């Protein structure tokens, strides 16, 4: 199993697309900086009353899971697109080993990169805010945990992307599916009556990440429930993908 993980790690880091996706996640910093700047400007002219910047993570919270999900998608959709998956499958004992190895690799990369990005986002927001009382210091409740939970959310999104791409076997299909899956609850929520709308929006990965960190007013679940739901997303993605890769002819 370690061998297959080593193999997948080399595969991931020897493709340019990996670096393009990771570079694209840096757009979160620009977005955060811009939002924090706009809010700071509002504060300077109007004082309190506007939205606070807080940790600064909320501005890019919907985008980063999509980008890390893309990392998971590309980890296998490229093999399906070229047909290399057949070669890969002849070299390993069981298809599920391949999926598990890919999942471990993309989850680890997404967790680390997501974590680094979360800290960078936080510090970018605080730097732009400067001394204004609209930021969030790590001494405030849930500020540090919110940053720390973002890495977890990124990893979950990456595994979901991997699972989706394994089932759909197509890069564009999986990317569309990923965006739909991650953002659909936010879109549908408006048309669903209360309290189901809140429940639905609490099920998105960004929202679960905040609930995992215990951020106040972040959704209907506590950290424990949020953990269970995030874990079940991972398990469901991997089980469905294993079923697909095992049952279908390659």
């Amino acid at each position, binding site marked *: 199993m370690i*061998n*297959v993980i*080593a*193999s*997948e790690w*080399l*595969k991931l880091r*020897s*493709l*340019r*697309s990996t670096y393009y996706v990771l570079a694209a996640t840096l757009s979160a910093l620009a977005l955060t900086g811009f939002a924090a700047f706009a809010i700071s400007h509002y504060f300077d002219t109007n004082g309190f009353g506007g939205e606070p910047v807080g940790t600064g993570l909320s501005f890019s919270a919907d985008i980063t899971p999509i980008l890390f999900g893309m990392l998971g998608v590309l980890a296998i959709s*490229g*093999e399906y697109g*070229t*047909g*290399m998956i*057949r*070669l*890969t*499958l*002849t*070299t*390993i*004992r*069981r298809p599920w080993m391949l999926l598990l190895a890919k999942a471990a690799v993309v989850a680890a990369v997404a967790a680390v990169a997501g974590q680094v990005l979360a800290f960078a986002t936080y510090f970018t927001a605080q730097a732009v805010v400067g001394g204004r009382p609209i930021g969030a210091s790590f001494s405030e409740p849930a500020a540090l945990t919110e940053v720390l939970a973002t890495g977890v959310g990124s990893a979950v999104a990456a595994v979901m992307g991997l699972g989706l791409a394994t089932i759909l076997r197509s890069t564009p299909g999986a990317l569309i599916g990923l965006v739909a899956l991650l953002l659909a609850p936010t879109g549908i929520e408006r048309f669903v009556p209360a309290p189901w709308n809140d429940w639905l929006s609490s099920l998105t990965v960004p929202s679960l990440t905040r609930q995992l960190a215990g951020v106040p007013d972040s959704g209907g679940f506590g950290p424990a429930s949020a953990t269970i739901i995030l874990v079940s997303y991972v398990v469901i993605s991997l089980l469905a993908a294993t079923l697909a890769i095992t049952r279908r*002819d*390659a």
Partner: protein
Amino acid sequence: MIEVADLTKVYGSTRAVSGLTFHVKPGQVTGFLGHNGAGKSTTMRMILGLHAPTSGKALINGVRKSDLQDPMREVGAMLDAAEVQGGRSAFDHLQALAYAGGIARGRVVQVLEEVGLAGAARKRIAGFSQGMRQRLGIAVALLGDPGVLILDEPVNGLDPDGIRWLRTLLRSLATEGRTVLLSSHLMTEMSLTADRLIIIGHGQLIEDTTTAELLARFQGGVLVRSPHADRLARVLEAAGATVRPAHETGVPAASETAVSSALPSQAGAVPSVLSSQAGEELLVSGLTAAAIGDIALANSCAVHELAPRQASLEEAFTEITK
């Protein structure tokens, strides 16, 4: 050792492979022949556990591919050399697969040298020619130093030097006691490389024989051209031979075959010139060229051409798969 027993694969309403049974023995090169769409690739994919058979079984070293404990060291495969991710370098491509099989880095360097890609190891596969990709595919198959090799159309895209190189390589791998199965739709190439031939058509087994036996079976008579064809035909038949007018049988004269294979671009023009002076050609089987010449002399029949006709494997293939 590869064993295929009553293997059947049905896709929807199409029977891609139907009740196929054959064994591929170690120590020899086995050619797997059939026209495009005959079911060669499907069969190979089933042997490699990529496609599940509808019924029957395909075994490598006595077990199914999924039951091999160390697949890369037992079976090496090349399915389609184009099926690689072009963004990776040849070295990374091989190294990634080597990691999966727990194969040492030194072996990667070794196979790159063996297939003649050592100089291009750090280049991206996207820039490779078809022949280079083919070599890379063969390198992958050799990576685990496996006892069984399954190669789908390995000759495609190789230049004449490459084909010769591959032929030598496959022969030496078989001599080492390995099982070598390679598919092709090129009969002539197979006759030079394979000891044994498994020929399929429409997913069914047509022939499972040695190359020598197949060649011998389709050894096609002697071509005789004579101004006294009618008389000669009678005396030859009296001597126990079977005589047919060469052109009526639709079998091209030896001279035409030689010309058209040597000058394919002019193949259309030349035979018409030849056939204008023909019409006196006989295809004689059952007698040697020497015996025919003696009989012709004894009966005062002038002979203008006396050519033993070596049936090409390509003709045999066409005949068999009709």
